[in-house]
Structure formats: structure tokens, C-alpha cells
């Protein structure tokens, strides 16, 4: 039972009081996602080895770290690249707003507001640079990231052909690829489920809602 500094919500809390009570302290608000954009941990993310004692899991090791740092953060080079991309976006925004006309505070033109935001983006991007060695809120691309590329490819293929041949065949193929190759389901389940999904979609969107989605049949 080491007495580590424990960050707790509530300003009146005497943080890091090395009492037994601190073990079950609430994690800092930082690790939790903001309301709405929940990024709930996947089942595999439960901190293993935390034992059955919830107190262990509850004691945040380092206030700067999320509760379940399963994925390693990216290195300084990637962080610097992020900062530069943000600055480049801001720069492009400034260039674009400039051509729209800057205006004056008394006579704002079309480019005034975008210029203010783009300048803010550029400055904020520059402000990321000093922290590139300390930034830990990123996630490295894992070997499983190929799945994301494959998933995007199926969606791009879907949008490329949906206007021509209708949604049924592309949907079935997309579902099959996701089930069999991205999800690792069995061949049989993938085949049956992808056909069933398209049938259900057809029944709902074409039959029930009569949506003008392009369809073959």
C-alpha cells in the first residue's frame, strides 16, 4: 500500500492524504470521457492483474495517465507532425480567408471571421510544439490498424458503386467483409448474416419507409 498522490475531484479535497481511504478514491475527472462522446472501454481493456479488489483499479497511478493505458502513446515525432498539420491547416485557412477579403472591425467582410479562426488554429497548433515530448494522449497505430484501412476501403467501394448498381450487393459485400475478415466470424455465419442484414434493410428502407435509396430489385 504505497501512498501515492491521488487526484480527486472537488477542490476542497485534500488530495493525496496518505490514509487508507485514499485507496478507493474516485479517479480524476480527466480519464473519463466527457458526457456524450463516450469512449467506453472494450471488454479487453479491463486492467488485468488488478485483482478482484476494486480499490486497486480505483487508485489512479498517475494523474496524467488515463485509467486504462492499454495503447501506448505516439512518439515526439508524430506529436510534432500533428502540430505541424494543425498549423498548416490554419495557414491554409488564413490564405483562403485573405482572398475573400479581410474587412475591418467596423465593416466585417466574408473573410474576417474565417481569418480570426484560422489565425487561432495556427497559434494553437504552434502551442502544441513545446509539449511534443510530454504529450501522452495519443495512441500508436497497432498491427490491427490495417482493419481500419480495410474498413474504409469497403466504404469507399460502397459509395463508388451504390449509385450505379443499388445498395443491395455492396451492402452484402460490406457486411460479409466486416463479419468474416474484420470480425473473424465463421464463413457460414458471415454468409448467412450478411444476406439477412441486407434482407432486413430492404424490408425496412424500401418496403416500410419507401426511402428513395437506389436499389436493384
Amino acid at each position, binding site marked *: 500500500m504505497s501512498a501515492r498522490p491521488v487526484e480527486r475531484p472537488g477542490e476542497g479535497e485534500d488530495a493525496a492524504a496518505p490514509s*487508507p481511504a485514499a*485507496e478507493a478514491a474516485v479517479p480524476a475527472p480527466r480519464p*473519463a470521457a466527457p458526457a*456524450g462522446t463516450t469512449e467506453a472501454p472494450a*471488454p479487453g481493456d479491463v486492467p488485468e492483474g488488478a485483482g478482484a479488489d476494486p480499490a486497486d483499479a480505483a487508485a489512479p497511478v498517475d494523474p496524467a495517465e488515463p485509467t486504462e493505458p492499454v495503447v501506448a502513446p505516439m512518439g515526439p515525432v508524430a506529436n510534432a507532425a500533428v502540430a505541424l498539420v494543425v498549423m498548416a491547416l490554419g495557414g491554409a485557412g488564413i490564405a483562403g480567408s485573405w482572398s475573400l477579403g479581410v474587412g475591418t472591425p467596423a465593416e466585417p467582410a466574408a473573410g474576417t471571421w474565417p481569418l480570426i479562426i484560422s489565425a487561432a488554429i495556427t497559434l494553437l497548433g504552434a502551442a*502544441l510544439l513545446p509539449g511534443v515530448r510530454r504529450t501522452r494522449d495519443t*495512441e500508436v497505430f497497432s498491427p490491427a490498424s490495417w482493419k481500419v484501412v480495410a474498413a*474504409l476501403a469497403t466504404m469507399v467501394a460502397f459509395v463508388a458503386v451504390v449509385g450505379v448498381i443499388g445498395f443491395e450487393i455492396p451492402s452484402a459485400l460490406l457486411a460479409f467483409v466486416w463479419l468474416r475478415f474484420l470480425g473473424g466470424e465463421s464463413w457460414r455465419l458471415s454468409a448467412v448474416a450478411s444476406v439477412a442484414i441486407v434482407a432486413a434493410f430492404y424490408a425496412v428502407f424500401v418496403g416500410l419507409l419507401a426511402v428513395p435509396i437506389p436499389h436493384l430489385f
Partner: protein
Amino acid sequence: MDSLTPMIDGFGVVLEPVNLLYCLIGVVVGMLVGVLPGLGPAATIAILLPITFGTEPVTAIIMLAGIFYGAQYGGTITSVLLRLPGEASSVVTVFDGHALARQGRAGTALGVAAIGSFAGGTLSIVALSLLAPLVAGFALDFGPPEYTALALLGILLVATVGNGGRLKAVIAACVGLLLATVGRDTFAGVERFTFDSLSLADGLDFVPIAMGVFGIGEILHNLEQRHTAAAAPAKVANAWPSWADLRQSAGAMGRGSVLGFFLGILPGGGATLSSLAAYAVEKRRSRTPERFGRGAVEGVAAPETANNAASTSSFIPLLTLGIPANATMAMIFGALLIHGVQPGPELVSAEPELFWGVVNSMYIGNILLLIMSIPLVGLFVKILRVRATILAPITVLITLVGVYTVRNSVFDIALVIVFGLLGYLMKKFGFEPGPLVLAFVLGSLLEDSLRRSLLLFDGDPTGFLTRPISGTLLVALAAVIVVPPLAALLRRRRAQRQPEEAEKTPV
């Protein structure tokens, strides 16, 4: 007394069969979303937006609101039984809820949570009914300068209260504002950032952005994670808590309701923050704080009550000021706009049916949730067995087909994919997608009121400070910018001191 009439008429709206049905659909979907880890309420609302287009606005919002508060109930179930919070707002419930479950008292934990949620939600609706018209009446005098300050403050609070890097969240918000400028400029009639594309001339639509960044972005991000099948959860024998448990947790529920209600009103506050705060408060005032984390009933009651109270009260800024307090409210804001309803102070008087219909539907929704969550817990636990690998392609297809149905445009499908990639990359690089969508929604309001104010002040920006309300809001804005870095600095100093002291203390 005449102020009560529209409120009572609102019940008439709720009790229409269609609205009751959609309320039921909303809360059931919300429960499911809460139970299934992965998609949050904001993403679900994004994906389901197209489905609501065929309905009346009040019906649509009743359903979407049901998803939001239903998710707070559902998130508890997995927290208690599997130690997996389905929602961020149920994270603290894990500590005592799961401890109770391991003692064979899962039913007690779930029952207390359901009753607490109901109590918190209901008290919060009553308070909302009383407070919202007052706030709206006050806000009727707001002019462009006040709205400028309010929108800025709202965006900044949401960006800075969230998790992750504040700086990155503010950048995300700025990008959202920039995206909102795409299309024809309403003042000058000039096309901005359209690259001569006809599809962009009318600006970017809210639906593909929200569906892409929240929906597809989250699905792509989840693809990378390993999906292990959920372990068989503990059997739930009896979800009725005993009188002793209820008496023990009554105080916690009361305090949780009040705390949740007030934190929920604050932009960026919302359910997650209030559940954490309520837990901390209970533990602090308890005479036996060592029980917390080992199965204290209050440790379940307080956060669950608070998160429901907060999710209800976060409707106040949206319905009275037209400023969404968090990402989910931004989705409901977008849904209202799509239906041609401008949320703001005029809403209570101009659309009393909508306002009171939605508010009163929450009573019904909470009753439905209470009915569902106590006896039907076993059913929802079974749903956990559905594998994420099967759900993922279904959600993707709903998104792709759904976004097409909004404007019958293949371009929107492409857009949703582009923004899905953006949402995924943002998550990988530590940018919260919430502030982007929220800022996008508020973007045109902010630019509009800023330009109107500048015209009003003849280009003198100090004019904002001379008006009492906008001046106060801008001072608050400055405080939000300055205080957190200062607090972080203080904390770092204290943290540097602490380890030394800890070493001196015999362990």
C-alpha cells in the same frame, strides 16, 4: 396560473400514442446503447437522426431525449455486473456497484441505481419545469453581443472541461467553427471555401459531419480493439432493494439530485462530472468512508442519481438559450434545426407544445425506464452476448444508407466517410470529436452575432464589455482560459512536494 396551462397541455402531447411509442423506442434504444460498450449516446443519436425526419419535431426530440437519459440507466447494468462501464457517466458506479455484485447483492445495486435514477430524473424535471421559463424570460432581452459571449463561453467550457488535452480540444472546436463557414456567406453573398463545388455551395450539412465524426469514427476506432466475449455475468436474483437499503441511500439520492441538477446546467458539466462529484461528496460526508469501494449502497445511489439529474437539467441551456451544454445536446440542437425549430428563449412561448411535450415526456420516459430496468434486467444482460463484430457492420450500413436518405445525395455518403476518417484520426491523435461538432453547430450563430455586434458597436470590440451581461460572460470566459493552467501549475507544485512527504511517512 395561466403559466400552468401550456405545461398541462404538454401532457396531452406526450400522451398521444405516437409520442408514447417513440418515447418507448427512445428509452429502449438508450438502454441498449448504455448496456453495449462502444457507441455512446451522441453517436447513436447521430446514426438515428435520419429516422426522425419523417416525424413531427416534438416526436423526434422525445425519442432522441429518451436515448440520452435511457443510456444513463443502461450504463449502470454493465458497471455493476461486469465492471465495464457502458457509459462514461457510470464509471464511478463500478467501484461500489461491482463490489455489491460480488457479495451477491447485484440486485440491490441495480435496484438502488434504478430508483435513484428515477428520483434524480424526476426531481430534475420538476426543477427544469420551474426554472426553464424563468431563464428563457430573462434571455429574451439578449442581443447579438450576449449571444456572442454565450456561444464563445459554451464552446470553450465544453472544450476545456472534457478529458484529454485542453489545447487539442480547443483546436478541435476551432476546426468545427471553420467548417461551419463553408458555403455561402449570408452577409456578403460570397461563396467561402467551396472550391467551386456545387455540393458545397449550401455549406456542409450537420448530419454527415455528426454521423461521420461520432458514428463512423467510433466504429473505426473500436475495430482496432480486441473483442473478447463478455464474461457470463453474475446472476441477478432480485432487483428490489430492501427498505433498509433505500433508507440508507435516501440522503445520497437527495444530495445527488441537487448536485447533478446544478452541474448539469453548466456547459461542459453534464452527467460524467456530476457522477464523479456526487460520489466524492458522499464519501466525504460519510462517517464510514472506508466502506466506499467495498459495497456501499450510497456509492451506487449518489452517482446514478446525479448523472440522471444532470442529463435532464442539461436540457435547460439548450431549450432556453439555444446553447447546447454538451455533445449530445449538440445533436439534439442539430435535430431541432433540421426540423425547422430554432432553439432559444422564444421556444417556450413560440412552441409551447414542443417545449412542454419534450419536458413532460421525460416523466413518462423515466417511469418506463424504472419499469423496464427492475424486472427486465435479465433481458438486457442477455443482449450483452451479442458480439460487437456483428453489430459493427449493421451500424455502418445504417449510417451509410441513413445519411443518403436525408438529402438523397451520394455526396453525403462520401462526406460521412471522410468525416469518419477524420473522427478516427482525431481519436488516435488525442483530439476530442465532441467540441468539433458542438462548435460546428454553434458556428453560424457565433459568426452572425459577432458580425451584428460589431456593426452595432461600429467596430469597437470594447462594446462587448460595456453591456452588463455580455461583459460578465466575457469575464467568465477569461477566467475559464486563465484558471485551469494556474490550477495545473499549483497541482504540479504540490505533486512535486507530495512524493517527498510520502517517503517520510512509514508505509
